[in-house]
């Protein structure tokens, strides 16, 4: 039966790759089929309806709340001009030196990446950051990659991601935080190396573009001006609270929302702005929320006793126990997290992680190390992830060009993560 379940998983991957089914729908369908194949009854204990669908759907509720709060804060950073001011100041200070501007945008992207993820994070840093880099001579592919690499630097400190791995892998937040702190230096070094090396290799580029002047004057947005300097600290507030003072994730994010609000908004306008950005945050959060409902359902399915029993011998046979082999095999498998592949942690990879833990093949913290290492690759180089698609298209290049340029760097990050995992937890 284990082989049949794996074949069903492969069919699910094919459906996602070929875009026959959106990932979230494919994961729910997979979960239901796996549950039936595992011999789960329709209702009752360890059943399809009560366990997989009813209990699985809200299993990642804490992550969903964190996602909503992160998106809310992201909307506030946009609407109050905090993100725009950060990028504008960087261009003003470093505009003569494209590498300096790119490093500055990298830093802003990293800050934004600690708050929110996916396409909204890329937009916050990239809407101004990408054309600003291009305007000072950074080549387009390098500019798009810079925003993505920057977000990936922030991802180890993205609080909703901590919550996700904590809930999905049933690990304390402290454990997740501990590993993320170890993963961060790899992401940082790779990102800085990307900016410096790629700018050096490619040099600067200036184009006589037909798009440089608009035939019609651009519609004037409400003039916001620069946000005050102390408001620019808003993205750091949740991080300082959660990382430095070990405050829980949701209150830390709420504190960030409040800080961004009070430092930029007149008291009479606060209610209106809070509601507007909260509802805007829901809109931004909708796609990941749908995905997290589906992942919760899939995790519930692969943890059913029948599924664990069927998959355990197969997974044990193919999973290396030797630390060196572990690093080699799982680093070589990095491309399988691209294109919605089976190791994508925000897809079937979550299910595979669940199986590895449920069957006891690896300790949960080792699976955390593997999954977070893959997440560093997926978040930057996957040409189907929304942030990559958005950043590439906005820069006027293809997501595949960005993948080719960034993959060597994030592959090394994954290698670093795997080495730490093998050294500490195997």
């Amino acid at each position, binding site marked *: 039966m284990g082989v049949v379940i794996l074949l069903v998983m492969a069919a699910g991957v094919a459906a996602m790759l070929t875009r026959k089914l*959106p*990932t*979230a729908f494919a994961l729910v369908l997979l979960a239901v089929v796996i549950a039936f194949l595992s011999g789960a009854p329709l209702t009752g204990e360890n059943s399809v309806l009560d366990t997989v669908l009813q209990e699985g759907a809200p299993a990642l509720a804490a992550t969903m709340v964190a996602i909503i709060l992160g998106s809310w804060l992201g909307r506030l950073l946009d609407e109050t*001009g905090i993100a*725009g001011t950060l*990028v*504008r*100041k960087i*261009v*003003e*200070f470093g*505009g*003569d030196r494209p590498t300096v501007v790119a490093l500055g945008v990298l830093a802003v992207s990293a800050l934004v990446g600690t708050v929110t993820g*996916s*396409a909204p994070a890329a*937009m916050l840093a990239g*809407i*101004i*950051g990408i*054309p*600003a880099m291009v*305007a*000072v*001579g950074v*080549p387009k592919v390098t500019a798009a990659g810079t925003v993505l690499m920057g977000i990936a630097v922030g991802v180890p400190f993205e609080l909703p991601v901590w919550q996700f791995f904590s809930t999905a892998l049933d690990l304390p937040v402290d454990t997740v935080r501990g590993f993320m702190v170890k993963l961060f230096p790899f992401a940082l070094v790779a990102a800085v190396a990307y900016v410096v090396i790629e700018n050096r*290799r*490619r*040099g*600067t*580029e*200036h*184009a*006589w*573009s*037909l*798009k*440089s*002047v*608009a*035939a*019609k*004057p*651009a519609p*004037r*947005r409400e*003039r*916001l*001006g620069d946000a005050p300097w102390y408001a620019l600290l808003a993205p750091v507030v949740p991080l300082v609270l959660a990382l430095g003072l070990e405050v829980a994730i949701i209150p830390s994010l709420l504190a960030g929302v409040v800080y961004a609000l009070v430092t930029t908004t007149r008291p009479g306008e606060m209610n209106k702005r809070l509601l507007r950005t909260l509802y805007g945050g829901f809109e931004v959060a909708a*796609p*990941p929320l*749908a*995905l997290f409902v589906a992942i919760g359902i899939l995790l519930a399915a692969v943890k059913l006793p029948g599924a664990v029993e069927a998959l355990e011998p197969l997974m044990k046979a193919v999973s290396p126990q030797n630390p060196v082999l572990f690093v080699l095999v799982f680093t070589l498998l990095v491309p399988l997290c691209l294109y919605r592949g089976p190791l994508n942690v*925000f897809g079937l990879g979550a299910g595979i992680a669940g199986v590895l833990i449920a069957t006891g093949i690896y300790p949960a913290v080792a699976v955390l190390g593997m999954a977070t290492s893959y997440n560093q690759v997926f978040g930057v180089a996957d040409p*189907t*992830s929304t942030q990559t*698609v*958005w950043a590439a*298209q*906005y820069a*006027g290049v293809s997501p595949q060009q960005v993948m080719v340029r960034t993959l060597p760097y994030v592959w090394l990050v994954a290698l670093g993560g795997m080495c730490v995992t093998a050294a500490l937890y195997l």
Partner: protein
Amino acid sequence: MTLQDAPATADPAATDDIGWAVRLLAATPTHEHRDPELLRHWARTADAFGAALAPVACSARIVESDGGLAHGLLARYTSRPPTVELFTDTIALAERVVDARGWRAWYPAGSVRAAALAHEAVHAHLHHGPARAALKRALGHHALRLGRLRVPGHVAGAEEVAAHAYARTVCGLGRSPLLLTAALATEAGTGNLPSSARDARREN
């Protein structure tokens, strides 16, 4: 009402060269919320700076290719290795646009190619020499003021305005290449800047 705010007219020549330079700056990221008068001041300054530049030789390798219209480009300078790429299909279209609009007196035959070379030569000049700092000083923008301390700020897009003004001057054009760029953008269907792609949302 400033020129920047003026409604688009059928004849882009109705907008003067500084007006087009203001539009270029207004469309450059980091200037979205700037005072139009400040943009006009910067446009004038950068235009004057470019027009006053001594002639610079283009030492970069020159490559001609087509495919410019597909990318919305007329010419491109890359520093590694120093290369100026001229897009022949866009230049040819520009010459046709000049004829169609009756602008030949402003842009003599062959002047578009010469202007493209001059434009990119200035980018190379600004990239490698001290002229960039001089432009920054001329613009007089400060990124930071702390008491007596003044940190000069970069004005994104000003080099582009200067490069167009230089090309206009050394090639003896009657109007800025920016006017031609705007007409080309309309002709090539790229007149509107790319959307912010805020709606380009897919699953995760």
